[in-house]
């Protein structure tokens, strides 16, 4: 199976208090970047689908990772290559010239070229929290889609059973490939991804895998290509226009109460919540 995984780098949420707004524009200088966690989960799920979990070095499929961004964004791709992805593509673009729609249209063009069996991606990026690319892409491709996957079963290479958590239980969808699937955080639980290549008895460690130094060094030799955004979309206009940014008002420090009685009194008389 060939799987395409789009990745986005996001500013490290731990740096939230370093975000600056200058002249109504977001100032990204000095921020630290890390891969969007949901995208890392997608890479992990893709690797699990394309390997025998008991011998992860022998690949039985291909994982192609792709990101949009300037040269520095290749760091995000190399991190994915280090954990096991097979090849990487960077679509040269500026972060603030993109929205979910342009990204989905460019990915459609890339899918037409790369011909993956599956596009696996995070349900949303934790910076904008838009939650759009997967759905738009499925629509543009005319492919079946499943969003917020909590588990994926791949019994044959032609179809998937995707389980999504919904109120009151799980909804199981059968998808015929090719398809688009977006993942939620439970996809990296030890038994969330099952495939014909890995014995049913195998248990993965919880969470995403980490690369040993040897793999980090070896990743430098894996293929990394650059594609211009203009080569994928003729119309790079975004549908979303940002008119301005401002920081939320800073919050007042909380207080500590000594007794339940005091809490009730404050809720009643100060917060007027009771």
């Amino acid at each position, binding site marked *: 199976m060939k799987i395409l995984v789009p990745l986005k780098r996001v500013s490290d949420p731990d740096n939230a208090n370093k975000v600056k707004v200058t002249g109504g524009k977001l100032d990204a200088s000095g921020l630290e970047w890390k891969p969007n966690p949901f995208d890392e989960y997608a890479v992990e799920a893709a690797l699990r689908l394309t390997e025998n979990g008991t011998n992860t070095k022998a690949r039985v499929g291909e994982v192609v990772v792709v990101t949009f961004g300037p040269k520095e964004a290749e760091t995000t791709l*190399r991190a994915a290559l280090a954990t096991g992805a097979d090849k990487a593509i960077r679509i040269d673009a500026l972060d603030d010239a993109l929205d979910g729609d342009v990204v989905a249209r460019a990915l459609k063009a890339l899918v037409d070229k790369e011909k993956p069996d599956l596009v696996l991606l995070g349900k949303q990026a934790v910076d904008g929290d838009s939650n759009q690319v997967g759905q738009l892409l499925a629509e543009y491709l005319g492919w079946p889609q499943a969003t917020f996957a909590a588990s994926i079963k791949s019994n044959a290479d032609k179809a998937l059973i995707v389980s999504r958590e919904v109120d009151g239980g799980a909804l199981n969808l059968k998808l015929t490939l090719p398809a688009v699937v977006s993942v939620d955080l439970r996809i990296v639980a030890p038994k969330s991804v099952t495939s014909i290549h890995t014995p049913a008895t195998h248990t993965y460690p919880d*969470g995403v895998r*980490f*690369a*040993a*130094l*040897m793999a980090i060094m070896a990743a430098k030799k894996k293929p990394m290509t650059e594609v211009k955004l203009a080569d994928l979309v003729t119309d790079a206009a975004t549908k979303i226009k940002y008119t301005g940014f401002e920081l939320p008002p800073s919050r007042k420090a909380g207080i500590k109460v000594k007794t339940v009685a005091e809490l009730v009194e404050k809720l009643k008389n100060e917060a007027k919540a009771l």
Partner: protein
Amino acid sequence: MRYLFETEEHALLRKSIRGFADVHIAPFSAEWEEAEEFPKELYAKAGAAGVLGVSYPEQFGGGGGDITHAIAAGDEMIMRGRSVGVTVGIGSHGIALPPIIRLGTDAQRDRFVRPVLKGEKVSALAITEPSGGSDVARLKTRARRDGDHFVVTGSKTFITSGVRADFVTTAVRTGGDGHGGVSILVIEKGTPGFTVSRSLKKTGWWASDTAELSFDECRVPVGNLIGEENQGFYAVMVNFVAERVMLASQCVAISQLAYDEAVAYAKQREAFGKPIMGYQVLRHKLADMASRIAAARALVSELATRHVRGDEASGLAAMTKNVATDCCSFVCDGAVQIFGGYGYMRETLVERLYRDARLYPIGGGTREIMNEIICKTEGY
């Protein structure tokens, strides 16, 4: 804070080590320190994750990195794992393996290096003896040749991981007095006459075991001689620079951890109606701590870079170790002071770091011996 020499590769490595420390060490660090032991299974987990082999050649199952990678990895182990004892205990191969890698035969490397990097075997280095550690050239443990064996008699003390070690890289006297009579033997657990005579109680580094070892007519096969007979002193000495970079970098990590704890505490602890961070004396104390850490980090950076480049750096290594250990003692003491009474309580991390810090001006060559080296390299 990263070291100046770090590249994207180091950043990815840090992320991996952080992932390991967050899951496999941090949740248990306080418990293991109090128990004065960490589970032996941790070796296998660390081996499988590539944590043990970071700076060892790929041909022996290592990660192919150099000392700069080892420093970055150690930094994450301490900062995220929050147990100095575990870091130094699980890292005892950092001093036990280099003589074997440098002077051993391929067969010896296969037997001793590979299984340690996989986490299947525990290794230790034994140089220090009850009668003295600073004066390595005067060590007394005797190894007499008898056919296909060396017969070893003597004792070693303060040996990190010695209690659980499957083998001990041991400096012994095969020849006459002085440094020209020293050889290195790998002495394996279970060899008749080799016993762990004591597990020692310490000020700090609790999660790491420290042993007194005794050898009584212990017969070690000649195949366990590392390098040539009577050439062992050089092998021991040549690794001291690498050991001192590592110890100095541990001091930087411990200092940073204690400092971060102190800053967070000073912001939220109140006295006389305001956070204690509101008092300039405490802010200045923290500013001094931060400056010392920056200086120690910069020196470690310079030393590591020179070491990788192949410069002779024994004098600089001695200076770096002293600067970093002084920084660590100063910062941990300051952090305890900022924590007040809580700083003196075993439940507080900085209390433990303060105890851990005391080792560094002693282990790996004392502060005074470092100054002796500096005098020599400075030429007076």
